[in-house]
């Protein structure tokens, strides 16, 4: 009987071999090749990993990136400065305002524009709101990947409040194009401040509850502690920045080390982790949200302290780069000239080069601008934090389980738009 079975199997194999050609060595191979991505339901964004698995353990992985590359650096070489802002929206689209303002701050530093304090504080409010929305997505997605969908759905409502504030300030929600070189396109309305107050009132309770759902949750802890860990030394060598580096125990934060937009006027601490694993990254982001809340409160108080004419200031005086009021364009010669020159992109930049960085949602977002004195940048390079630290992914997941690799990927806060530029 057994022999018969054997014979049947043999015949079957012989039969199959006429139709299917398997890659050489694939029968003897002890490991399984698994293609995760480019658009896999478990990865949030376009990431491809070709993994070699031994059972459920990862032996090696090969990453492919660039599926949504959009040639931003090339495009930027034909655009005047203000037209580059919408490009930056599409880098880390979970916190577009930080990218927009990072770019404006770079331009201002390059052109020597001094912004009024009120503009700085308003920017801080928006940037910290963006940081909260960025961390909120990341942390709640880590929850989703460990099997807790509720937290994600719950906090989405509060990201909505943040998006409504953006909408009130600049008219759009996701790709914001918020602000201009020199400040904001219009002053914050009372509705914007009301929405901000509503957020400041309601959000702390939500964040506390979100934290209670996860931080000491047995299942969550067991899924995340020890997974995707990296030492401080390796993290630095891999160019980690932002919460991922801080989770490994290095207290580097651009807001403190090279303060921009008057961050030196605020009181806040840099939360650091110890082990650099998924759990520490979660905790660091969580703590940062509390810090951001406190910064927003401080900034809002400072903004409220401006009275009279000072409370109407929302941009610096840079006629070369800041579009004049529409009614002035129709009635004043000077404004008409500047309007024309700006819209036609006829303003020439000084010569020189600058590197300027801001603390983005997931790390140090840098802009390296080289100008030859023309109307558009000669070269613009974006230092995109997740492009640099995603290299460490194979090292983080090798030897671990496949399901942990998915959690690690979410907890690194990889944003495909930023990764692929």
């Amino acid at each position, binding site marked *: 009987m057994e022999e018969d079975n054997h014979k049947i199997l043999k015949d079957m194999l012989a039969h199959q071999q006429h139709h299917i050609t398997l890659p050489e060595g694939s029968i003897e191979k002890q490991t399984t090749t698994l293609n995760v991505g480019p658009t896999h339901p478990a990865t949030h964004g376009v990431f491809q990993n070709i993994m070699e698995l031994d059972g459920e353990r990862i032996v090696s992985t090969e990453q492919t990136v660039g599926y949504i590359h959009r040639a931003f650096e090339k495009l930027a070489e*034909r655009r005047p400065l203000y037209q580059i802002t919408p490009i930056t929206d599409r880098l880390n689209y979970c916190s577009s305002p930080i990218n927009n303002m990072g770019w404006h701050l770079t331009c201002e530093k390059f052109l020597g524009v001094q912004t009024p304090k009120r503009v700085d504080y308003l920017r801080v409010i928006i940037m910290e709101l963006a940081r909260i929305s960025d961390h909120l997505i990341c942390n709640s997605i880590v929850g989703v990947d460990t099997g807790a969908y509720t937290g994600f759905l719950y906090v989405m409502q509060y990201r909505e409040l943040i998006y409504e504030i953006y909408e009130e300030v600049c008219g759009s929600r996701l790709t914001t194009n918020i602000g201009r070189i020199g400040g904001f396109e219009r002053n914050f309305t009372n509705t914007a401040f009301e929405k901000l107050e509503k957020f400041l009132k309601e959000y702390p309770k939500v964040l506390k509850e979100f934290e209670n759902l996860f931080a000491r949750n047995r299942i969550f802890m067991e899924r995340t502690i020890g997974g995707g860990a990296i030492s401080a030394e390796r993290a630095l*060598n891999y160019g980690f920045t932002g919460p991922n580096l801080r989770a490994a125990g290095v207290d580097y934060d651009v807001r403190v080390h090279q303060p921009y937009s008057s961050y030196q006027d605020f009181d806040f601490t840099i939360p650091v982790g110890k082990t650099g694993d998924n759990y520490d990254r979660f905790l660091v982001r969580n703590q940062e949200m509390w810090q951001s809340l406190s910064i927003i409160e401080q900034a809002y108080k400072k903004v409220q302290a401006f009275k009279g004419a000072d409370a109407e200031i929302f941009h610096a005086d840079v006629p070369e780069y800041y579009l004049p009021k529409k009614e002035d364009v129709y009635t004043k010669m000077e404004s008409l000239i500047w309007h024309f020159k700006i819209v036609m992109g006829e303003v020439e930049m000084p010569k020189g080069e600058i590197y300027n960085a801001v603390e983005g949602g997931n790390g140090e977002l840098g802009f*390296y601008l080289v100008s030859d004195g023309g109307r558009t940048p000669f070269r613009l390079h974006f230092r995109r934090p997740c492009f640099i630290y*995603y290299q460490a992914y194979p090292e983080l997941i090798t030897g671990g389980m496949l399901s942990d690799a998915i959690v690690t990927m979410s907890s690194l806060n990889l944003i495909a738009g930023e990764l692929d530029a």
Partner: protein
Amino acid sequence: MALTNQYMQEKLQEKFGDLVSNFEESYGLLSFEATAANNLKVLQFLYDEPSLQFQFLTDLCGVNFPDDAGREISVVYHLHNLTENIRLRFKIFVPVAAPDVFTSCNLFSSANWMERETYDFYGVNFVGHPNLKRILNVDEMDYFPLRKEYPLEDQTRIDKDDEMFGRG
């Protein structure tokens, strides 16, 4: 004593003499140039020297200067000393005909993809790189798109038919 740009410049000149040049300070950031053949020695020195300790590679990218014969392609390193909190910009120039640069992958793991990106867009051949292939563009691409010889479409051209764009 806090690390200053002047000290860094003196230290580098003392060690490398004529091999480093074009020191300049823009927006507070010290920038200098070294010969392409010595990029690794300079990086290693900046990394190891106890008083310098530039151990964080912030950024690495290419720039193309088509009019600068013999120095068409530039590779720019941005380094950061995190303890002293001071940055440094370091450039090398290579001819477009033979854009060979030694890889810094052994010093910085982060350089791997940044060098692949620079290869992808400028065709810089990083000698000794473990996996020098395209990263953001398709593998089949046979040119280096960020070089200045490939201009974006000129938006001021007059031969476009406006009718196609709902105008005129």
